[in-house]
């Protein structure tokens, strides 16, 4: 077997795979943030809590109703999306006429409430979620061992990301959405129900977070705090990529996951902060972000 810079390939590819998995979560979560930001102009701080809700949703379906993983993948994201729609209709809607920073503060408060409740009732130790039979085991690719559960996460998030890109860039609904992002008043004048579009967009973005949560349930422990630190890294991903482009968010998410994986191989101490360092560099060189339009 060959070695690369003294690193055995199993280690290298293993970490790259882990990086790709992290990148999948970064991509799906930053995509949701970008979709919401595009139309609502708020940064959804509740996103991490909604990701956690997705994982807990899957866990509750399994433990309370005996509904398995594959149904959870289908059922949980729309349910989490619905909770988002309720939040938007009841609370977030009231802030659109104000500075966008109030939206950030409101969603931060909501995140504290949701996470606080789950910590109070489920503890912080983490609940196990057994992977379904189809996802146990794996394949030997010759140069590395690929567990099925990991391959599924990467595949599923790629599919969801590309489907989102397709809906927004290639369908009529997506065209309305892009038009409303540019000029909501004008789109409203053409007889399109913009407030409804806004509500649905928020629900969709939140459903993406819930989907990421369901994907995370079998590979990470289900824990009330699981979204809190992740969402801050996703913020950095969003700053690096800029929120102007859908494909840009996806590419940045996967790319940064890979870079993080590589850092874990060559300089493990730096892996927790490498994304923040890249953010600093991007701010120095191209403050609007790699794919962003200058603000």
């Amino acid at each position: 077997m060959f070695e690369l810079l003294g690193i055995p390939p199993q280690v290298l590819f293993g970490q790259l795979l882990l990086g790709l998995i992290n990148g999948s979560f970064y991509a799906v979560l930053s995509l949701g943030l970008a979709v919401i930001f595009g139309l609502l102009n708020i940064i959804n701080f509740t996103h991490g809590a909604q990701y956690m809700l997705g994982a807990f949703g899957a866990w509750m379906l399994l433990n309370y109703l005996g509904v398995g993983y594959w149904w959870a993948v289908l059922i949980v994201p729309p349910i989490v999306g619905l909770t988002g729609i309720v939040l938007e209709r009841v609370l977030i809607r009231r802030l659109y006429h104000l500075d966008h920073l109030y939206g950030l503060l409101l969603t931060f408060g909501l995140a504290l409430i949701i996470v606080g409740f789950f910590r109070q009732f489920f503890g912080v130790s983490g609940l196990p979620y057994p992977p379904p039979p189809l996802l146990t085991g794996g394949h030997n690719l010759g140069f590395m061992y690929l567990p099925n559960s990991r391959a599924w996460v990467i595949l599923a998030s790629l599919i969801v990301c590309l489907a989102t890109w397709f809906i927004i860039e290639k369908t009529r609904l997506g065209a309305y959405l892009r038009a409303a992002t540019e000029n909501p008043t004008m789109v409203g004048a053409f007889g399109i129900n913009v407030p409804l579009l806004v509500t649905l967009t928020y629900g969709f973005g939140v459903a993406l977070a819930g989907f990421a949560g369901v994907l995370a349930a079998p590979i990470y422990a289900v824990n009330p705090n699981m979204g809190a630190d992740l969402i801050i890294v996703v913020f950095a991903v969003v700053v690096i990529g800029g929120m102007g482009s859908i494909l840009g968010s996806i590419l940045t998410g996967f790319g940064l996951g890979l870079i993080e994986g590589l850092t874990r191989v060559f300089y493990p101490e730096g892996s927790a902060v490498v994304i923040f360092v890249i953010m600093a560099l991007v701010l120095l060189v191209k403050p609007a972000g790699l794919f962003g339009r200058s603000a």
Partner: protein
Amino acid sequence: MAIDTSPIAIAAITSVGTAGMPRHHLAIFAALLIFLIAAPFLLYPVFVMKVLCFALFACAFNLLLGFGGLLSFGHAAYFGMASYVSAHAAKVWGLTPELAIVAGTLVAAVLGLAIGSLAIRRHGIYFAMVTLAFAQMVYFFSLQAAFTGGEDGIQAVPRGYLFGLIDLRSSEVLYFFVLAIFFAGILLIYRIIHSPFGQVLKAIRENEPRAISLGYRVNRYKLAVFVLSAALAGVAGATKAIVFQLASLTDVYWTMSGEVVLMTLLGGMGTVFGPIVGAAVIVTMQNYLATFGDWVTIGQGIIFVVAVLLFREGVVGVLAKWIRKPL
């Protein structure tokens, strides 16, 4: 881009200008001082010192948000890092408490300069996200660095002898040292707000393109207020480390950044006295609800939501509207 503050708070700056302090402000400062001198005889001194440290932290934060119009979501970085440095200086280097606090403050200012110069390249929401992300980086650094003691933090920090002479081990004596720091801090902030520099800040907050077209180097002003705010947050964090003889990861974590935003929002952004009230309310709530575990977090979340939806001026902002005078 700027977050809006109550028009009365804005009037405060315009009406006072750089001339002396209006009479009702003087009266409030005097009453506050008298109350705080009496406080250790009525209340538990360590509790009041905790309130004072957080009140100074919130006032420093408010200097940036309420008067500079910049929402930093990562102020725990300066508070926490100053707390670590001052604890380390007092315990390992054996510095006297006032020098330890100066050391912590300097490090917070340098950190503010580094992060601030990058963060001011973005506006609004991005600014908040960038500051939050850098603060998280400081948190990870604190988790891994050798001198911070990781999960344990720096414990048993000696309170030491003030100027090498006055023994601070008694909480009653230490209290008056902390009171002096707090009062000097808020008077300094008051002076900054009402200086020509503060006027320019207000202009930038209200209309940045116009300030640029008038020839102001906007980014220098923003960076200056960012560093000032970080340094003052550092004073608060460093003092807290001496009072509690402890510096820990809680002080650098993002929850701490959220708490200082909450204190300022609740008390009243852009008011002089609001953050003090906000800090007193939140610290009291934490103290009395401590036994209820996560209900404290839930309660803070609810206060956030209610404050954002129903009284964005904050407690003191509402009062100021009521008596029709800036507070």
